[in-house]
């Protein structure tokens, strides 16, 4: 270029130069082609189906998202509220629940319940065995059942002093002695 830029500098500032960019405008021919292409592409969008992931994203942004959130919340609430009812109180080795159908005699209506948790805690702490304890032992029977004997003495407590690793269901049944059939529940 023949002219030296320094010769022009006094009259021109940055804003003037940038304003020149406004003049870079396409011709009418360009806009005619532009309009045709745009209309073509817009028509294609009306016919063309979006990819599955776009539909999914769009769906999640609306009602599906709300329903999914509600369902997730219901599941969480259900897990938090219902699950503890099915969980053992201690989780060391498992739980023994004697089958009530096998031991509850028909016609028994009275219920006797004995809680030994605190006593067993003492025993367990003494023996340094905190991995199990008897939660409750209850017996259902008629008051006029002459064969019913409340026998929840040391036999049943012996269970608690046994090591959990060698503890067996049979021994629990043997030690929770009933003259009459009843319900025994041992949790350790």
């Amino acid at each position, binding site marked *: 270029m023949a002219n030296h830029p320094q010769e*022009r500098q006094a009259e021109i500032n940055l804003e003037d130069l940038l304003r020149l*960019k406004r003049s870079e405008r396409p011709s009418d021919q360009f806009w005619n082609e532009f309009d045709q292409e745009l209309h073509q592409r817009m028509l294609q969008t009306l016919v063309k189906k979006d990819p599955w992931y776009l539909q999914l994203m769009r769906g999640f942004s609306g009602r599906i998202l709300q329903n999914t959130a509600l369902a997730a919340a219901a599941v969480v609430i259900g897990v938090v509220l219902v699950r503890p009812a099915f969980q053992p109180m201690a989780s060391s080795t498992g739980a023994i629940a004697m089958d009530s159908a096998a031991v509850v005699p028909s016609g028994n209506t009275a219920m006797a319940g004995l809680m030994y948790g605190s006593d067993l805690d003492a025993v367990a702490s003494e023996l340094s065995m905190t991995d199990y304890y008897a939660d409750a032992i209850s017996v259902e029977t008629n008051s006029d059942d002459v064969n019913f004997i409340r026998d929840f003495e040391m036999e049943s407590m012996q269970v608690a002093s046994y090591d959990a690793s060698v503890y067996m269901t049979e021994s629990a049944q043997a030690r929770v002695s009933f003259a009459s059939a009843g319900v025994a529940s041992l949790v350790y």
Partner: protein
Amino acid sequence: MATTDSVSKAFAPAQDAPLTERDLDWAVVQRVQAGNVAAFDQLVQKYREHIFSVIYNMTSNREDASDLTQETFIKAFQAIARFKGKSSFFTWIYRIAINSTMTFLKKRSRRRYISYENINEEVHSTDIIESLTAKNRSEKGAIVHELQEKLNDSLQKLSPKHRTVVVLHEIEGLSHVEIAEITKASVGTVRSRLHYAKQQLQSYLQDYLG
């Protein structure tokens, strides 16, 4: 400049006229939302040159600008049913254009093709060009081409965010507030970016500015 004036009208206060540009645009949008798809063409005709100008000055590429301008209107068309009118259509369509261009520029970061748009004839009558070619009118074309190249090159040296602010303010003539609304940045951020960008451009174009 006529284009700048028409763009600025979109932000004119309501008391200046019974119906603002924003109101008029919103009326057209509602017609489109009601099923009158052809009404969308009015919005295309109104904003296509502004959008093209922004994208062209962001990309410095004619073909890319054309594609991205079309993409902008297609995106707007696809999403117009969800447009609630919380912002003006003007702001909304500019935002789509800027976001599309930003995404494109990230992908294109390692490639840079510059193709020039023809400078409109009217520019040759401006004082700027006259000043540049004062010494020798026979070099007008060469001077214009050289300056065009230098301007595009300088703009491309800026980061996309700084370039956006410069393009919207210095070329499109939008206010700081309008740019802040479009870019979702604070007015202070816009001013800061503009100041920094102009400093950079001053250094790049030093030969022409002194």
